[in-house]
C-alpha cells in the first residue's frame, strides 16, 4: 500500500459504499460499520467503480484473516495465511497449485476451522460455525467445482434454505422464479429457472452459482476460479457484475490463474506460496512477471545429472486426441529413453489425457499408437498389452488395494505370469514381490503387511513396482511425488531417471515445476484442454512454463 496515496484520497468509505439509487437492495446495517472521522466531510467524488486502479485506501476493512494456519493430519495446508478485504475492492488471491488458496477459501466458507490465527468480520473477532455461519456473516462463496442439486430446479438451487415465503410459511414459487429471473437478467444470461439443474453445461452451472452468491446480498464474495468455464462474453458480464458489487460496497476475493483478468478487474493482490502469505499489494505498478516470480519464488532447481543418451524410437504417439469439453486436439509423441512432462494448471486436462491414453476414459476423436499398434479406445487391457504402465494420480483409490498385502499389490498386475494352472503360487508371488521391493528400496515390515501400513512414499514405490514388474516399454506417471516426503521423492526421481536410461518412454504429469524441470527432456504445457506450448529442457524455466499455463504467452503475442 503506497503511503503516498493515502494523503491524496480522503473520500469517506460509506460514500463509496452507497451511491444514491444505485444499490436499492444494499443492506443498511453495513454503513454504521464504516469508520467515522471523515464521515461528515463534504462528499468527495468516490472512485469510479469500473476503473480497476481506483481503491479508496480508507475504505473500511470488511474482513480479515490474520496469520491463520490449518493442518490436515501431517499435511500443513496453510502455515501462515493472511487476507485483508476492504469494502469496494476486488482483491486477487494468487498462488501455484497447492499454495493453500483453496484451504483459505474453505476457512472463509466455514467448512474448515483454522487451527490458529484470527478472523475479523467488520473489525470484530468472529468464528464461523459451519457454512450457515459464513452465510450469516455475509460471506458468499462461488466454488471452483459447482455444488448444485442436480434433481432440483435452477431457482431452487439458488434459493435453497432461503426460498421466498408466502402466507403460512409456504414457499412462494412464483416469487422465487421471478427473483431468479431478475438475477439472470442482471448477469445478462438466459437460463430457465424452472428447469432442473441436471444437464446444465459447466458454464451455466457456474452462472447459477454466481446467481446464488448474488442472491445472498453478501458483503464478501469469494470467487474461486469463476471464469474457468465461461466464454469471453460471459466473463465480460461477470466483470460488470463485479464492478456493480464493488460500487455497492461489497468486497470480492477473486481467484484466477488468468493474470490478465486479475489486472483487468482487481485493485489489490495477495500472493501465497507453500501455505504462506508472500505479499499483499496494490496491483498498480506490478507486472505479470512480478506476480509469477512471487508465486514461484524458488531458485532454479538443479537437473538430475542423468546419463541418458539420445532418445530412441518413438514409442507412444498421440494424434489429435479430443474428448469434447475436456481436451481438444492433443498431439505429441514420446520416444524410448525420454521423459516428457505434461505441465499446466490443475484442471487443464492433463490427467484426463493420460486416462484416455491408458483407456480408462473414452475419447471422441484422434488416435493413440503404442509400440507401432493403434490402441483400441477405452480398453486398459489393450493398453497394457501394448506395454503401457499407468501410475495414477490417486494411489490410494486407484493405484493400490489398501487392504491387501504389499506382496499381493506388487504382484497384482503380473498375475498372468505368476500362476500355474490358474492358481497363483504364494511362493512365486513372494519372490517376485521381494525382488521388486528390493530394487525399489521399498521400506516395509513384512511383505504380508497390508499396504495401508506403509508411508505415502513407499506406497507410491509399490505402485511403481507393480507396473515395472510387467516390464513396460511406456510408463505414464501422474503426479508421482504428490504428498511424498523429500527423501523418498528424491528416490522416485532417481528411479524415473534410471528407467528412462534403460530405454523406457516416460510420460510424466506433474504440477511441481521444480520436478518437471529436474526430470523432463521435453515439457508440454496444457492450458484449458489444449497444448499451449512445448519447451526443450534447456529453454524452459518456471516463469516460461507458468506464463504458458496461465495464457501469458498468448497475451504477449497479441
Amino acid at each position, binding site marked *: 500500500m503506497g503511503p503516498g496515496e493515502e494523503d491524496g484520497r480522503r473520500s469517506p468509505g460509506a460514500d463509496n459504499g452507497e451511491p444514491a439509487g444505485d444499490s436499492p437492495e444494499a443492506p443498511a446495517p453495513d454503513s454504521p460499520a464504516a469508520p467515522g472521522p471523515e464521515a461528515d466531510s463534504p462528499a468527495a467524488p468516490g472512485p469510479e467503480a469500473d476503473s480497476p486502479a481506483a481503491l479508496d485506501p480508507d475504505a473500511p476493512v470488511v474482513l480479515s484473516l490474520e496469520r491463520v494456519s490449518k493442518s490436515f493430519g501431517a499435511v500443513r495446508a496453510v502455515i501462515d495465511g493472511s487476507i485483508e478485504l476492504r469494502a469496494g475492492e476486488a482483491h486477487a488471491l494468487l498462488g501455484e497449485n497447492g499454495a493453500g488458496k483453496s484451504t483459505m477459501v474453505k476457512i472463509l466458507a466455514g467448512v474448515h476451522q483454522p487451527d490458529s490465527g484470527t478472523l475479523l468480520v467488520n473489525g470484530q473477532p468472529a468464528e464461523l460455525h459451519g457454512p450457515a455461519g459464513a452465510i450469516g456473516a455475509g460471506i458468499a462463496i462461488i466454488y471452483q467445482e459447482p*455444488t448444485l442439486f442436480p434433481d432440483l430446479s435452477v431457482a431452487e438451487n439458488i434459493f*435453497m434454505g432461503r426460498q421466498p415465503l408466502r402466507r403460512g410459511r409456504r*414457499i412462494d414459487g412464483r416469487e422465487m*422464479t421471478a427473483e431468479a429471473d431478475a438475477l439472470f437478467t442482471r448477469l445478462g444470461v438466459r437460463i430457465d429457472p*424452472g428447469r432442473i439443474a441436471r444437464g446444465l453445461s459447466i458454464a451455466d452451472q457456474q452462472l447459477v452459482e454466481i446467481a446464488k452468491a448474488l442472491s445472498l446480498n453478501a458483503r464478501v464474495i469469494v470467487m474461486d476460479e469463476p471464469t474457468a468455464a465461461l466464454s469471453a462474453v460471459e466473463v465480460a458480464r461477470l466483470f460488470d457484475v463485479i464492478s456493480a458489487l464493488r460500487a455497492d460496497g461489497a468486497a470480492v476475493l477473486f481467484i484466477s490463474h488468468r493474470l490478465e483478468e486479475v489486472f483487468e478487474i482487481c485493485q489489490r493482490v495477495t500472493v501465497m506460496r507453500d501455505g504462506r502469505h508472500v505479499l499483499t499489494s496494490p496491483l498498480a505498478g506490478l507486472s505479470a512477471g512480478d506476480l509469477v516470480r512471487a508465486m514461484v519464488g524458488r531458485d532454479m532447481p538443479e537437473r538430475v545429472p542423468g546419463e541418458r543418451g539420445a532418445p530412441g524410437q518413438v514409442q507412444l504417439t498421440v494424434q489429435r486426441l479430443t474428448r469434447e469439453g475436456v481436451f481438444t486436439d492433443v498431439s505429441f509423441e514420446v520416444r524410448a529413453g525420454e521423459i516428457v512432462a505434461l505441465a499446466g494448471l490443475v484442471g487443464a486436462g492433463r490427467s484426463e489425457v493420460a486416462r484416455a491414453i491408458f483407456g480408462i476414459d473414452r475419447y471422441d476423436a484422434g488416435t493413440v499408437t503404442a509400440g507401432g499398434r493403434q490402441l483400441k479406445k477405452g480398453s486398459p487391457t489393450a493398453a497394457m498389452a501394448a506395454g503401457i504402465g499407468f501410475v495414477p494420480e490417486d494411489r490410494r483409490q486407484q493405484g493400490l488395494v489398501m487392504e491387501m498385502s504389499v506382496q499381493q499389490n506388487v504382484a497384482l498386475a503380473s498375475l498372468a505370469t505368476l500362476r500355474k494352472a490358474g492358481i497363483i503360487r504364494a511362493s512365486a508371488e513372494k519372490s517376485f514381490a521381494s525382488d521388486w521391493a528390493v530394487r525399489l528400496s521399498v521400506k516395509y515390515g513384512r511383505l504380508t503387511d497390508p499396504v495401508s501400513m506403509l508411508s505415502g512414499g513407499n506406497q507410491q514405490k509399490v505402485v511403481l513396482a507393480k507396473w515395472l514388474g510387467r516390464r513396460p516399454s511406456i510408463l505414464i506417471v501422474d503426479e508421482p511425488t504428490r504428498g511424498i516426503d523429500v527423501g523418498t521423492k528424491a528416490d522416485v526421481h532417481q528411479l524415473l531417471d534410471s528407467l528412462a536410461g534403460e530405454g523406457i518412454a516416460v510420460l510424466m504429469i506433474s504440477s511441481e515445476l521444480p520436478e518437471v524441470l529436474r526430470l523432463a527432456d521435453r515439457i508440454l504445457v496444457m492450458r484449458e484442454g489444449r497444448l499451449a506450448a512445448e519447451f526443450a529442457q534447456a529453454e524452459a524455466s518456471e516463469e516460461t512454463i507458468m506464463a504458458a499455463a496461465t495464457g501469458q504467452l498468448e497475451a504477449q503475442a497479441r
Partner: protein
Amino acid sequence: MTATLAPPREPGSPAPASSRRLAERVFRVREFGIIAVLVVFVAVTAAIQPRFLSSTNIQFILVDATIFALLALGETIVVITRNVDLSVGSVLGLSAFLTARLASSTHGLPLVLVFLAGLGIGLLCGIANGLMVTLGRVPSLVVTLATLYIIRGADVLIVGGSQVVPSSYYPSFLTMSKATVGGIPDLAIVVAVVIAGGAYWLRTYRSGRELYAIGSNPDAARLAGIPMGRRVFTAFALSGAIAGVAGVLWASRYGTVDSTAGTGYELQVIAAVVVGGVAIFGGSGSVVGAAIGALLLQTINSALYVLGVSPNWDQAIAGFLLIVAIVLDRIISLRLTASLRRRSARRGS
C-alpha cells in the same frame, strides 16, 4: 411439480421453454406410466374374471393398498434423503400387536387413544433409528437392518406364542376398516388425505424441499447450510410414526395378530416406492407416485389371486415389475440428461 414453479415465459426465449416442456413431459410420463399399467392390468383382469371388480374385492384391495401406501409415504420421505428404513415391517408388527392387545383388554377406550399408542410406539422406534443414523453416523442400511431384527425380536419376546383374536376386540375396532363411503373405504379416504398432505409439505415447505436437496447432493446441502442432521432425523421419526399407525390399521384389517405380523413388508414397501418412481439414491420422486406404486403392487397380487394364478408367482412377478420400473427410470433419466446436455452444448457453441 416443475410446472407449478414456472410462470409462462414470453416467446422471446424458445430454448428454455422447450426444455421445460420436455421436463414436464417426463414428469408427467413417470406417473402416467404407472397409472397406465394399473389401468391395463385392471381392464385385462376384469375382462377375464368380472368378479375382480366386485365391490367387496375392490374394498379389500383398497384397504390392503392403504396400509402399504401409508408405509410407502414414510419410506419415501426417508428414501428422498438418500437413506433407507428397513425396520418398517417390524415396527408395524410390534405396533399391531401392542395396540391390538390394548384394544382387546380395555374395551371402551376411544379409538383415538389406540391410534396415539400406535403412533407413539412407532415414533420411539423411528427416533432410535434417527439418532443412530445422524448422531452415530452409521449408514441407515446397517442401522435399520439391525433394528429390523431387534424390534422383531422384542415383538417375539412380548407376544410369545400367543395371539390376539378378533372376538376379543370391541366391535368398533374391527368395523373401522370395513366402513365405506360410496363404496370406498373410509380408511382409504383418510390415508389419501394424509398422503396429499405429505405431498403438499414436501413440495411447498422449506423443510420438505431440503429433504430433496440432501438426497440430491449431500455435500452441496451442507455448503448451503441445511441442518442435515435434524432433517434426516425427522425423516426417520416420521417413517417410524407412520409405520406405527399402519400397525393399528393392520390389526383392524386382519383381526388376528401374532408375532409374524408385517414380516417382509419392508421390501414390498421399498418395491412400491421404487415402482412409484422414487429414485432409490434420493433426490427425486413423489409420495403420490409411491402410493400409486403400492396400489399397483396390491392390485397385481389380488389379480393373480382372482385369476387363479398360484400365489407362488406373486413375488416373482413383483420382482419382475421392479426391474421394469428401474429400467424405465434409467432410460428416462438418461434420455433427459442427454437432451438437456445437447441443448446446453448448442447454446454454448
